[in-house]
């Protein structure tokens, strides 16, 4: 009797979480796959099986292709700044700068704002006529433009906004990682006459590897589903220059067409892309980390 109870104990502890996880993560994921083969619409009671029709339509949907491309561009283009800027700041802060707590808080502050606040603020800052940003550029004699309305710069403006928003979060994570690197390693390297750069490359970076990987993966997953910034800043414009997959999905399902089947197909294409990417990443990094 007692023994059986002991055998069930782990499951008792797991039950609440697994129930939550199964009902609200696993089931929706599979249900989404089912929906992607139907013509389900919001508010329509019946739905019919339509086979691969939704996927076939995606092959012709040029706006979906554009949004996939934009999402990929954003993901690739934003990775280096999002990885590197907080790292540089963290290394600087870790070198015994005065007012560390204040500085860390200052950089972290934007991360406490919601994406909506961030978007609305930058929308105004970047306004081509009355926005402060362009005003100061003009004063400095720098040529200005409508950063969010120019297909060449709109996505970059979104990236800058995002960097401003998330840097503090990754900074804190890097700082935590840096604190775990034993001081003696640096001292030993200094005695050996290694330069600052050399110490960074051969001590800091390798020892930060798990942290870097965490930041990298977190950022990539976030990038694939970028929505809020685009929703507020450009609504996907100019034209479709900043239209992203999640925005396209949102509009298809909840704003313009209410077509749940088509939107689910998009979700699964996105899922497949991410899965492929993850597998690739896993292969590339296998053996190098302890995850």
């Amino acid at each position, binding site marked *: 009797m007692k023994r059986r109870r002991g055998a069930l104990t*782990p*499951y008792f*502890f*797991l039950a609440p*979480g*697994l129930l*939550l*996880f199964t*009902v*609200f*993560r696993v*089931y*929706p*994921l599979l*249900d989404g796959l089912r*929906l992607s083969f139907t013509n389900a619409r919001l508010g329509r009671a019946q739905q019919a099986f339509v086979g691969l029709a939704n996927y076939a339509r995606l092959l012709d949907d040029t706006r979906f292709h554009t949004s996939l491309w934009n999402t990929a561009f954003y993901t690739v283009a934003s990775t280096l700044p999002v990885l590197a800027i907080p790292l540089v*700041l963290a290394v*600087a802060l870790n070198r015994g*700068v005065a007012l560390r*707590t204040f*500085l*860390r*808080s*200052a*950089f972290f*502050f*934007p991360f*406490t*704002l*919601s*994406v*909506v606040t961030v978007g*609305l*603020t930058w929308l*105004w*800052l970047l306004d081509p006529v*009355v926005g*402060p940003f362009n*005003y100061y550029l003009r004063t400095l004699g720098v040529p200005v433009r409508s950063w969010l309305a120019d297909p060449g710069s709109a996505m970059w403006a979104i990236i800058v906004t995002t960097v*401003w928003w998330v*840097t503090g979060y990754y900074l*804190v*994570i890097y700082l*935590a990682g840096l604190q*775990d690197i034993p001081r003696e390693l640096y001292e030993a390297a200094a005695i050996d006459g290694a330069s600052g750069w050399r110490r960074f490359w051969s001590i800091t970076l390798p020892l930060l590897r798990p942290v870097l990987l965490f930041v990298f993966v977190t950022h990539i*997953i976030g990038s694939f589903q970028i*929505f*809020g910034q685009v*929703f*507020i800043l450009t609504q996907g414009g100019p034209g479709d220059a900043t239209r992203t*997959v999640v925005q396209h999905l949102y509009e298809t*399902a909840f704003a313009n067409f209410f077509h749940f089947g088509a*939107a*689910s197909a998009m*979700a*699964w294409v*996105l*899922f497949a892309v*991410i*899965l492929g990417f993850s597998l690739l990443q896993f292969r590339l990094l296998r053996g190098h980390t302890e995850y």
Partner: protein
Amino acid sequence: MLTALMMGLAVLWLLPAIWVLVTSLKLTPDIVRVPPEWIPWPATIEHYGEVLFSSSRTARIGRAFLNSAVVSLGTVFIVVVASAMAAYPLARMRFRGRGLIFALLVGSLMIPNAVVLVPQYVLTQRLGWLSTYQGLIVPEAAMTFAFGVFLLRQFFLTMPRELEDAARIDGAGAWAIFSRILLPLSQPVLGALAIFAFRSAWNDFLWPLIAVNKPDMFPLPVALALLRGAYSSESYGPIMAGATLSALPLLVVFLVANRRIVEGVRLGGLKG
């Protein structure tokens, strides 16, 4: 030298946030000006009064504040309890399916929330949970749960076995070990997880945007986004006041728990 450089950068970094605060204190006719004015004088707090207390106007930021608080605290509670309970056996017990369950949970971290958006909406609608607190809290908690398990398991793994053995000799059951030994020792990590869950629930935008149809139930980010109206200067004041107010709870949490966040992140899963 480095300090001065970093100070300059930090001030520059804060400028957009300062702009929000400054705008929220300006009189309506003073808000749109070229060149930009950084000192809100004459200052007013009427925008705060308007967003918090005005009764017939729909920009019920006060109400949205309450909604956000209920949803975020509810999410934190579920995430912390469910993740801690699940992480305990995964870290410290041997049983069938352990590897599989953990692999599934970690694997799910790779799935963006957007992928389950539509079916999650269908499910929530079928449960009759649209525009309700539970309809926001439970899916929100489900999104953060796997991360919580991951974070806490890593920490639980580092605890010395002897603690448990000693308790077991004293006749303590699994629940007693969990609640009287493990949890109290895990406070920093639990705190970090709570803050993480609070922030992601407080700031989430996409799910409440679609799962709430009654404007009375909008949480802050949705209320702010839909308040922007025709993006005109007369709504800047209230919007920026609302934005400032919505940042306050997290700002306080961060200032109070500044150390703890770094510590929690450090103790948690990052060390692999």
